[in-house]
């Protein structure tokens, strides 16, 4: 084969590659794909932080909840422990959760109650309970499976200076607490930075990220708030002492560890 043919072949291949590149760049992502990107956002193999929630009622009265949080990936599954530090009457309460990637498999959860000095198996399905009187449900705080909703891309908007995708998420199960959610996903961070939660009566809650930044190479949520419009109640959540890949031992996620009444 002569040189001319090789040149033509190379030019043709480059054109093809160029077209495919353009096609990849311009092909719009679907809502499902965007939410999968959010779900798959890198966050290390393990992580720990101190989470402080300030609960503010309609008259401005504040209550403080403080939780030490540890989590670790085990393949596609995740194990986490939350140890309550404040308020004093629930200090030492520990919540252990083994969350499975397979949506058909129910999560395993245990609760250690220091007053009872006992670990109890709790139901893995009660995700719609509000977490410690805050405006976040367990589901809002946890990793909701992407397949549990139908996600539709509605368009693009700027939120607080961030270029975002606007997604509508409707639960597959019509019995769920929210009838739909509107989510604004920051394109740069693959993070939901604003959300509106609706139930059958209309707008229920508005979620806003107040501060997020890249730490140790991972986009990290530092401060957010959930405004429960219907209850005139607000929760401001702050994350401190965030650390990734610190080598948390597997033993931390055993029932026997929370049974001690202290995580160490």
């Amino acid at each position: 084969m002569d040189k001319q043919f090789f040149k033509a072949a190379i030019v043709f291949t480059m054109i093809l590659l160029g077209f495919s590149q353009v096609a990849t760049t311009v092909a719009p992502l679907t809502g499902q794909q965007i939410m999968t990107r959010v779900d798959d956002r890198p966050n290390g193999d393990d992580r720990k932080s101190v989470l402080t929630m300030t609960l503010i009622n309609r008259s401005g009265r504040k209550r403080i909840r403080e939780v030490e949080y540890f989590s670790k990936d085990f393949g596609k599954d995740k194990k986490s422990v939350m140890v309550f530090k404040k308020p004093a009457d629930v200090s030492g309460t520990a919540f252990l959760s083994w969350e499975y990637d397979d949506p058909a498999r129910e999560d395993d959860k245990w609760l250690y109650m220091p007053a009872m000095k006992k670990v109890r198996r709790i139901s893995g399905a009660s995700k719609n309970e509000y977490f410690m009187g805050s405006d976040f449900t367990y589901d809002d705080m946890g990793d909701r499976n992407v397949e549990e909703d139908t996600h539709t891309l509605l368009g693009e908007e700027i939120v607080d200076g961030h270029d975002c995708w606007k997604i509508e998420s409707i639960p597959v199960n019509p019995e769920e607490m929210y009838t739909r959610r509107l989510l604004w996903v920051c394109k740069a961070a693959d993070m939901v930075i604003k959300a509106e939660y609706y139930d059958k009566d209309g707008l229920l809650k508005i979620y806003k990220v107040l501060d997020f930044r890249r730490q140790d190479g991972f986009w990290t949520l530092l401060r957010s708030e959930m405004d429960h419009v219907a209850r005139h109640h607000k929760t401001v959540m702050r994350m401190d002492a965030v650390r990734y890949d610190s080598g948390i031992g597997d033993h931390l996620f055993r029932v026997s560890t929370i049974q001690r009444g202290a995580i160490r």
Partner: protein
Amino acid sequence: MNLPVVRLLMVFLMIGGSAVQAMAADTGAAWMEPFSLSGWADVIRSMRIRAPNDALTSRARLRLALDAAFGALCGFVSADAEKNWRIEEQTGVDLHEAWLEYAAGRWDLRMGRQIIIWGKADGVQITDIISPPDYTESITRDLDEIRMPVDAAKFRLLGDYIDTELIWIPVFEPAVQPSGDNPWAIEADVPETVRISSKDTVEPETTLKNSEIALKVSAYLTGLDVAASVFYTWDDDPAYHRTTRSEGDTLFVDYTPRHHRLTVFGLEFSRPWSDFVFRGEAACYLGKYHETKMIDMDPIQRDLFKWLGGVDWTPGNDWTVTAQITGADMIDHDAHLAGETHATMATLRISKKLLNQTLTLSNMLYYDLNENEFYTRSTADYALTDALHLLMGADIFCGDDGDFGMYEDNSQIWVKGKYSF
């Protein structure tokens, strides 16, 4: 433990703990970080629903706890101070728990005075008999206040899914029953021709041979917790052996309360499904002594089989419902025995949180299906602040002369304040 030592300990806890925390806060000194002081203070006063409408419960208590963690080594000490205006002998200070623990990766060892709770049951003891109960105020105290610590060494081998627990209790600790002027000490009616006297309770001496030993293997699997246990123990409640003599028409009965050896084999499980958690527990008490119907007849030894089935339901919206049915079946029942061949009881706990979880309304019902008697405890718990709770409630006993009915006159309403720090 004698009173001056415990008082000293309380002072040490209060001053030492507060000083450590204050210094840690002021200076940020790293060496003080392992220490933390916590506790609570509460005051409760009740009024009997029936005449004479007096204060059946009237006490104030302070609990101080200091823990220190140095890596794998951890220590914990807690003590109580109580002023009781109704049951004077309860006034004083007392060491609650005091233990040291070393936690390695695959095992841990906790030695000292500690509370050990077993089982899956809620408010009912089936296999959960390591820490004995304190029934000074019957079952009207909170469940965590009823359990007493034991001096023990607890060693655990820790697997990823299976734990093996070995407990050695060298010093026997009996259950506490109300006595003397305590309004919860209800004496049985005896005929006028009978005179009762009682010797001191015969408790096992503290020797190696008289130790109690427990072994439990627990598995925490996907969707299922199971455990099997064996406990070589002493019965927490004494059997009332008796000697009798007659003088004319009068029968003199002299009780000698004595604790007996028991071997208890136990099984337990819990399994979640959707919004529910199903629980079960069973235990076989070998060597148990039972009271007889005859005032002049010694207790009789019969093995006892206790069981429980329960379900927890969390339907959402801050509701919690727990229902249980429990039974005690005597093996080879004797017609002379006071207890029935099969005793069955049901419990129902309903709880609802309101006002952004600042108000908790709850009710716990115990219903004796054999005697048609019940005890119900209703509570409203309002969080005035994160630290300060105001509680109000009612303890209602209803029935004839069974375990609940005998306290019918002690039904009470109460108010309680609790400050946690």
